[in-house]
């Protein structure tokens, strides 16, 4: 899904979201967090698409990675709110 990144000056019509990257994804991107401005109503899938475009090696992050918001797993269609922190989780390997 494509979307228009809201211009910086138009903060009233945009939400600010922080994307946290872990493990392989952080290594690929060379950073553990990416700040985004997205249109109101944007979803986790929109945030993923923006990270894939903006981050270094972002295209190597899957289009549908595991994701979490507010410390819980969410689906790609989860709607984001201003100030949300989205975590993109590489394939899990705990235990």
């Amino acid at each position, binding site marked *: 899904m494509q979307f228009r990144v809201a211009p910086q000056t138009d903060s009233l019509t945009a939400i600010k979201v922080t994307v*946290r990257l*872990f*493990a*392989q994804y952080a290594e690929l991107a060379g950073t553990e967090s990416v700040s985004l401005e997205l249109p109101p109503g944007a979803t986790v899938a929109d945030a993923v698409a923006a990270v894939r475009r903006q981050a270094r090696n972002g295209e190597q992050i899957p289009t549908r990675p*595991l994701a*979490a918001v507010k*410390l*819980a*797993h969410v*689906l790609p269609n989860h709607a984001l709110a201003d100030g949300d922190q989205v*975590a993109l*989780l*590489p*394939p*899990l*390997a*705990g*235990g």
Partner: protein
Amino acid sequence: MAEGRYLTRRPIEPEALLAAVNHPGLGGTVLFLGTVRCGPDDGPVTAIEYTAYEEMVAAEFDRILGEARQRWPGGRVAACHRLGTVPAGEASIAIAAAMPHRADAFAACRYVIEEVKRRLPVWKQEVMDDGTRRWREAQAGAEPAEEAEEAGGAGGPR
């Protein structure tokens, strides 16, 4: 920081988990230890380096253990995951389940480890004997979790 209710950077102490679930009314206790393996098919792995989304590990462990307590009321469950470098042969995770009877203790312990595998945001890098590292993903299907699936472990990823 990684020292909290569920995470430690020091060797896991199974005795502490056993003490946490011990109760005179609970006649069956199962302790599961997952240890870093260096078998014939694993290559020259000397250790595994574990990292985690630590805040979420605590939240997810709360949910998983909460589900186990709901499913097997009257019992006790506890868990601990180690982070950092864990040498081959040492435990990376411990789960203790104490129930009035052994069948439920085995079932509850199995439920928790299978949900941990599916849901806990933890990652591991294998450390080879030449010092190189490689990310290691969980081997899907290597240890089928039919029972956990049938039990309907809700709340996992997708």
